């Protein structure tokens, strides 16, 4: 891993979306790693040490929110900014509340983006999160 580039881990089960987001973020100067499922993403955390994680809300097996909770509860990753991507903004809001409600003290996502992802918004959100 090079030291300077901002590293982003993209977690999405759709290879098309993964390819697309990876291409776009690389074009914008990020270093991107991808995972198709939560377990894979967790395995990669140590190696990648991402500056931000982009998670699809609906993932096979465990949901994107499970991954969020797991990372938040891990001291090492608790502060890594997490952006959740979803096709259903309302659903996510409700899900987030009821799901995170069951996990006292867990900080919610640092950003939520609806699908289709607006590239400019994604850059702005990542820019804000990675400079703060």
């Amino acid at each position, binding site marked *: 891993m090079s030291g300077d580039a901002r590293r982003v881990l993209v977690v999405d*089960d*759709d290879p098309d979306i993964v*390819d697309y987001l990876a291409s776009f973020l690389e074009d914008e100067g990020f270093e991107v790693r991808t995972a*198709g499922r939560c377990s894979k993403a967790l395995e990669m955390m140590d190696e990648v040490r991402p500056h931000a994680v982009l998670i699809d809300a609906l993932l096979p097996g465990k949901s994107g929110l499970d991954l969020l909770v797991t990372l938040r509860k891990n001291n090492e990753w608790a502060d890594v900014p997490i952006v959740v991507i979803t096709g259903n903004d309302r659903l996510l809001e409700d899900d987030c509340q009821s799901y995170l409600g069951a996990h006292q003290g867990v900080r919610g996502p640092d950003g939520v983006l609806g699908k289709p992802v607006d590239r400019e918004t994604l850059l702005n959100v990542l820019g804000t999160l990675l400079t703060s």
Partner: protein
Amino acid sequence: MSNTDATARDRRAQEAATYERYWEEMPCYLSVHDRDFRIIDGNRRFREDFGESIGELCYKVYKGRDEVCPDCPVEATFADGLSHPSEQLLTTRAGAEVPVMVHTTPIRDEKGEVVAVMEMHTDIGEVKRLQALLQRSQERLGQLFEEVPCFITVQGPDRVIQHANRKFRETFGNPVGENCFKMYKHREEQCLVCPMQQTFDSGEAREHEEILFTKDGQKLNALCTTAPLRNADGEVEAVIEMCIDITQIRELQSQLASIGLLVGSISHGIKGLLTGLDGGIYMVNSGFAKAKPERVEKGWEMVQRNVERIRSMVLDILYYAKDRELTVEDVDLTAIVADFREGLEKKASDADTDLHIDIAADCGVFPGDAQAIRAMLLNLLENSLDACRMDSDQEHHAIRFAIRREAPWMVVEVEDDGIGMDRETREKLFSLFFSSKGIKGTGLGLFISNKIIDKHGGTIEVDSEPGRGTQFLVRLPLQAKPSIKPETEGA
């Protein structure tokens, strides 16, 4: 004559005058009859309605008869010296009929012999009118109870049905002596929550929704209301239960809910497809700009794939919306598979997946709807492809697609080594609007496939583990299910 005698006489005369006045003013007919049924006296009311008929025969005067009445109370009192009450219908001189209650009383001489009989007739016209009114309203109430277009029962504390209306009897059978839980729900014991019991306990009305079963086993959704029936002391003696059939309302509601779900599911799916298209276009554009042909190729594939997804989603929606009947003909699976084989193999190789197709040479034809069967097969195969594409744990995948004849079934197997399913996903697999594909699924595909198989009288089994892959086993009957009939000419 002494003063005392005179005073006593005066007093008697005064008394006689008083009684005479009482006699005259009594608000009923008073008459005195001799042994020969002649009227020997009558009061003012009597004279008003029956004229100056002293000396005439009572049966003539009162009833216009020519002979003694068969149940004459005067005769009876002469015979036994007792009072005899009876109901009679009199006709006044003016021709009005007056229903009366008659009381007779014997008038005796010094020796105690009955020398005359006094009759007192009390007009009971009003009572009779009220009685008739009461009977009419009782009949009206009974008719209402019978004809109300809902199910009505009255139950005692023992939960035995005492009364039931016509609609209840027609729908649930004759309830005499039966328990409500048996008649309404075919249960052998009291329901866990018994609203009737609650009404007995609290004395208050209760409303609740129930699922009832008719005598023919048909399921009904019903809105039931119980109310207490109290006796004169205010104690709850029985409970009346009224159930309204709301099956149609519930069906409509569930259809509306389905439409709502469908709309949500479709817009959800479209957003996912837009993301794919948007991504594909970005890849094509940026690929050209940066002179990266492999990126252009990838992007173009994404566009194609998402256009294909839109097509199949629209077909699914149309199939769901129409719920069409099967068009049964001889289905040749070999021909169907040959038709889509090339396109499918291309998709499989794009997803780095080997496709093994194994169709037994002797599998022949079977009766079914070729178009529906084709849609079902493609749906299963595309699901398997998706399961392989979603599995990032291994680069290379394989799908086995086999068809063989195993009387009495045509057997279709679709097996992949893709991502696999957990138990929850397996159990919800064929539910409407359930999708494990997140944003990319509408939850229609397998629901419709299952419906197609079911309509053919077939079965579908699924065996799957996360990380191991999935196997679908479809069995379609070689003999047409009785409910599906071949298309007739001109249809």
